[in-house]
């Protein structure tokens, strides 16, 4: 069965590819990035500040630091020689395990030439194990974490035990010696002061953090925690939560707290909490709860691992962390229903905060995207007379189904007396394929019922099942037998007429039964799967739904896209758009950071994610369009570009003209607020957002609905802190048959007019 995880294939990349065309040659900048990222990757990050601080920490002991660096360089060299995917190398994915092995060895043995040679070969071993483990775990879509490090270091330590050229070192045992080596007696005194000033429970937290880099001392821990805080408030708070909750559990079970301070165990709680609470899942109150729940399990794993591995004189290192994270994530994949909480993050942003801000909206925006859009299987306005978990037949395994009928002017489903099928408005109406796919099963030849009769023996009546992708099918039932104009194996296009509504099977009066299911056979268990891009009408009020589950008695119809609008937002890779900016009265006011002219080029990456690249600032605005709705999904880079305002003005556009609907959306707050303003918001981001930004778009006019040449829209961005407005941008937009003509932006202080002047 297909996993119904949140499959958000959004348009992001986590690294900045500057010169992708220089194949094979080793770019210095890429190499530097790869080395730096190998450090920060230990905290799942590519943050510069964090890398620098971590390098600093690793060089507290110069030999350990050097041996770590040597291991990284060896690993990277191998990866380059093998021509591994450059972006993965640059991201440090083939360096961080080597780094840890290098650090481990550097700490364990005295400096010597044989040690350096061993480091090189141990690093090569680490790389081989990395590829091996990656190959295995890839099939399960799981990360390899630091498993290669564990295996490689254990192997090396066991093997080198009898290498007499390597002298065991006493580093990591006598902290004062090491501190003295770095800064003499003064530093020892300072260290003592710090160590004594803070309670043991806190100093152990710092030591545990330092231990991740084999630096079991408070100063290393303090530096790392500062790096974490700068990088991510969520990760920082999770590191505290994980650690201190473990301390509580130690007390509860009566475990000696000293075992925590004299072993390399503490960081397992920290890393597990970060990974589950804030990295692999979209941070929320539920992931924080999960992070707490796994701590006792990590304790069990830690103590048992210590005992078992202790027989070989091996430390457990990060084994508990690796086990719990992999098991936990893999377990989530077994959920059969569309998950409401604990969403896996498919494409990582730079920080967990950005994940929260971006994904908060995406979960609402497009739960179904990335899998497939399912439209209504009918044309015109229909009424749901039995929705999900309906009172009549939509129960149990079949509860996620819809019954469609048409309601006439008088509120009834039929005209005349309603004694014959033909009296029913829905009877004989076209049934459409809800999405592209193959017809996989057909049932026909069942005769239609008289009104009021039911054919329980042929429950579903004449039916068609279309498989859209593996694990996602739709079924339409109670059709007219001779109206089915497709065969098993046919490819059907979305919107294609496949049959007519009838009254066969368990159907006392004509209606269309429609359900989404995972298995390709008639009557399979239904899926709770949203329908996309439809309008619902209540009297004269019309609402647009990007997706949703229509409720019983909702009157719904498909959105029909307007060619001029669809055309204006059909941005094809390679196209170039140049906008000229004119400021009102030549006074730029708050927009002085902008130039007079900007050009964007549409790009598409290898995963066919599309983005605009601003030629001046190299900023990227990622967008998505499925022909019915266009929206921006992310913005990366410099905001001093018209591209930034372009994205805000057109954040989400439904591609069918309707002056009755308002398109609303939420804009991730980090698009509008500075890092400084977001600092406190970041801490509570998984729980509450007090900084919010909303987007609203309305169509104003269309000059001619049949062959339009001009469409006008207006949109608005409102950033607010509770009730207080921080920023208000209003846009007037004109589209012509040649595309976007102009965007006029007005804020409270200034305004400008951006005219599209060609390529």
């Amino acid at each position, binding site marked *: 069965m297909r996993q119904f995880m949140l499959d958000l294939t959004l348009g992001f990349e986590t690294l900045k590819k500057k010169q992708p065309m220089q194949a094979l040659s080793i770019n210095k900048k890429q190499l530097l990035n790869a080395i730096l990222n190998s450090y920060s990757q230990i905290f799942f990050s590519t943050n510069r500040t964090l890398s620098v601080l971590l390098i600093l920490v690793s060089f507290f002991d110069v030999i350990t630091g050097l041996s770590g660096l040597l291991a990284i360089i060896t690993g990277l060299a191998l990866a380059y020689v093998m021509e591994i995917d450059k972006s993965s190398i640059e991201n440090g994915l083939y360096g961080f395990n080597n780094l840890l092995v290098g650090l481990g060895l550097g700490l364990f043995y005295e400096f010597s030439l044989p040690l350096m040679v061993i480091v090189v070969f141990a690093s090569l071993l680490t790389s081989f194990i990395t590829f091996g483990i990656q190959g295995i775990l890839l099939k399960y879509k799981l990360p390899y974490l630091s498993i290669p490090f564990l295996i490689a270091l254990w192997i090396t330590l066991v093997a080198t035990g009898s290498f007499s050229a390597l002298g065991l070192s006493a580093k990591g045992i006598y902290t004062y010696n090491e501190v003295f080596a770095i800064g003499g007696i003064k530093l020892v005194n300072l260290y003592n002061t710090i160590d004594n000033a803070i309670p043991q429970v806190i100093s152990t937290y710092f030591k545990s953090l330092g231990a991740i880099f084999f630096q079991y001392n408070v100063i290393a821990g303090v530096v790392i925690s500062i790096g974490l805080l700068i990088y991510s408030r969520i990760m920082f708070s999770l590191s505290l939560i994980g650690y201190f909750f473990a301390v509580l559990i130690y007390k509860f079970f009566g475990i000696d707290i000293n075992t925590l301070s004299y072993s390399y165990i503490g960081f397992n709680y920290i890393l597990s909490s970060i990974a589950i609470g804030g990295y692999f899942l979209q941070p929320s109150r539920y992931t924080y709860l999960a992070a707490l729940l796994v701590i006792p399990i990590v304790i069990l794993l830690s103590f048992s691992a210590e005992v078992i591995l202790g027989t070989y004189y091996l430390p457990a290192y990060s084994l508990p962390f690796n086990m719990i994270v992999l098991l936990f994530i893999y377990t989530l994949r077994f959920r059969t229903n569309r998950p409401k909480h604990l969403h896996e993050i498919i494409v990582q942003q730079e920080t967990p905060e950005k994940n929260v801000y971006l994904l908060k909206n995406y979960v609402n925006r497009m739960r179904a995207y990335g899998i497939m859009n399912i439209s209504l299987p*009918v*044309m*015109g*306005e*229909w009424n749901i007379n039995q929705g999900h978990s309906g009172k009549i037949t939509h129960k149990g395994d079949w509860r996620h189904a819809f019954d469609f009928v*048409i309601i*006439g*002017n008088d509120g009834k489903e039929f005209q005349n007396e309603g004694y014959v099928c033909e009296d029913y*408005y*829905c009877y*004989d*109406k*076209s049934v459409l394929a809800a999405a592209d796919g193959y017809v996989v099963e057909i049932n026909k030849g069942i005769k239609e019922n008289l009104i009021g009769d039911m054919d329980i023996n042929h429950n579903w009546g004449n039916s068609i099942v279309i498989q859209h992708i593996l694990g996602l099918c739709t079924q339409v039932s109670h059709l007219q037998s001779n109206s089915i104009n497709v065969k098993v194996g046919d490819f059907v*296009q*979305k*919107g*294609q*007429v496949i049959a007519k509504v009838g009254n066969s099977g368990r159907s006392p009066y004509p209606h269309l039964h429609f359900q989404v299911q995972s298995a390709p056979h008639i009557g399979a268990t239904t899926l709770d799967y949203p329908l996309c891009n439809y309008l619902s009408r209540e009297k004269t009020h019309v609402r647009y739904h990007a997706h949703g589950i229509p409720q019983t008695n909702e009157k719904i119809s*498909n959105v*029909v896209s307007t*060619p001029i609008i669809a055309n204006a937002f059909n941005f094809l890779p390679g196209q170039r758009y140049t906008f000229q900016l004119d400021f009102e009265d030549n006074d730029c006011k708050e927009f002085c950071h902008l130039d007079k002219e900007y050009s964007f080029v549409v790009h598409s990456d290898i995963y066919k994610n599309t983005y605009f690249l601003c030629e001046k600032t190299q900023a990227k605005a990622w967008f998505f369009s499925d*022909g019915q709705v266009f929206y921006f999904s992310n913005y990366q880079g410099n905001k001093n570009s018209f591209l930034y305002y372009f994205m805000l003005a057109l954040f989400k556009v439904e591609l069918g003209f309707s002056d009755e609907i308002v398109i609303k959306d939420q804009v991730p707050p980090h698009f509008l607020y500075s890092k400084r303003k977001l600092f406190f918001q970041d801490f509570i981001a998984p729980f509450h957002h007090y900084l919010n930004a909303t987007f609203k778009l309305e169509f104003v006019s269309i*000059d*001619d*609905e*049949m*062959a339009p040449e001009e469409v006008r829209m207006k949109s608005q961005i409102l950033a607010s802190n509770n009730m207080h407005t921080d920023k208000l941008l209003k846009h007037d937009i004109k589209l012509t048959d040649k595309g976007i003509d102009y965007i006029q932006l007005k804020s409270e202080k200034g305004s400008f007019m951006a005219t599209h002047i060609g390529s």
Partner: protein
Amino acid sequence: MKRIYEKPVISKINAGMPDKFGMSNKMREVSQIDNINVEDITAEYGSPAFVVSEKTIRDTYKDAHRAFATRYPKVQFAWSYKTNYLDAVCNIYHDLGSWAEVVSMFEYEKAINNGVPGKKIIFNGPDKSKEDLKIAVDNGSYIHIDHFDEFYNLVEVLQDSEKKAKVAIRINMDTGIYPQWDRFGFNYENGEAWTAITRIMMQDKMQLAGLHTHIGTYIMTPSAYSLAAAKLSQLFLDIQAKFNHTLSYIDMGGGFASKNTLKGAYLPGKDTCPTFNQYADAITTAIISSGIDINHLPTLILETGRAMIDDAGYLIGQVIANKRLSSGRRSIVLDMGINNLFTSFWYNHDIYPAHIRSQALEDTAIYGPLCMNIDCIREAIQFPPVELGDHLVLERVGAYNMTQWMQFITYRPNIVLIDTEKKMHLIRKKENMDTFKTQEDTAYNAQ
């Protein structure tokens, strides 16, 4: 009610028995229109009077729209002005979303006057002067070219114009029905239509927006529409293939039968005429299965008039005489005649008494008030006895009568609209002597 003396007649008893077509021989009475008593209407607005039901207009429009919109993604109705161009009526259709379909500058002006934007007017018909064409081009209306001379005129008009004209051609074709309306537009089978399309495509200032056909009137076989839609769809594809040009619409015109009964028909129209669903099924199935990309289907325009409004119109009047003809046959004379009821030339209109005195039906001729022999509403109808001043109601007179009526011998009557709240509104005043005084020039006087 006081029983009134009537001469004895001998007739076959058939009350309550169905005739050989299965039709009941009982007469029903129509005492109310939209819950308003017929007598109350004439008391306020005189007799005769036309009555238009807004509720019926809206319900019928929604039925028709639903029939198409649940089968085809993009549907646009255009109200056929000639069917009924009373402003109040047109505005109901425009409120429902209809565009305007006009066939003369008079109707064009009426549409503009009703607030219809030029871009939502379809200009049909064989009679468009250069001046008319210029106005239509300036307003961005859709011009449906009827013949080559109009095309040449339009070319001339466009020479001095900065605007592009949005045009379509009207196409006539063999759809298996008789008579074939080949007097309008360009013929499909002999290639004239394709010649016209090619010529238009060569014109820089003309944008070919769509294709139009109107296969006839009162068409009782939906399959004719199916053929017509298939032929237009083929042209749509040919234009796409040859000129890489995608048309915005296919206009199937009108001609849907209403529920009136044609003279000479055996069975009543309400039993034999196709429903909107049948027409819609024929047309949409043909277009959808023609091979046009289903994601880029052209808008389907419908200009049906008669079937939309016929049911909403009533004519009410009173008996002004009971007579026996020389043959002994009964006849009655009403205050409403063919001057009000142009359609009685081709329909056997349903006419009902507001109140029935007796079901003893008798073969009756019903005449109008004109001093002209042709003024006959029904030559023979089984009708109950009526008395002087009794109210009679003619149903299904909404189409054409309020436009094709004659000012002949007497004034044209009031037209009353009953709105959806059951309130009456006078939407066209009865004529009087002043109507004529404003029109006639009295400068010349022979005396």
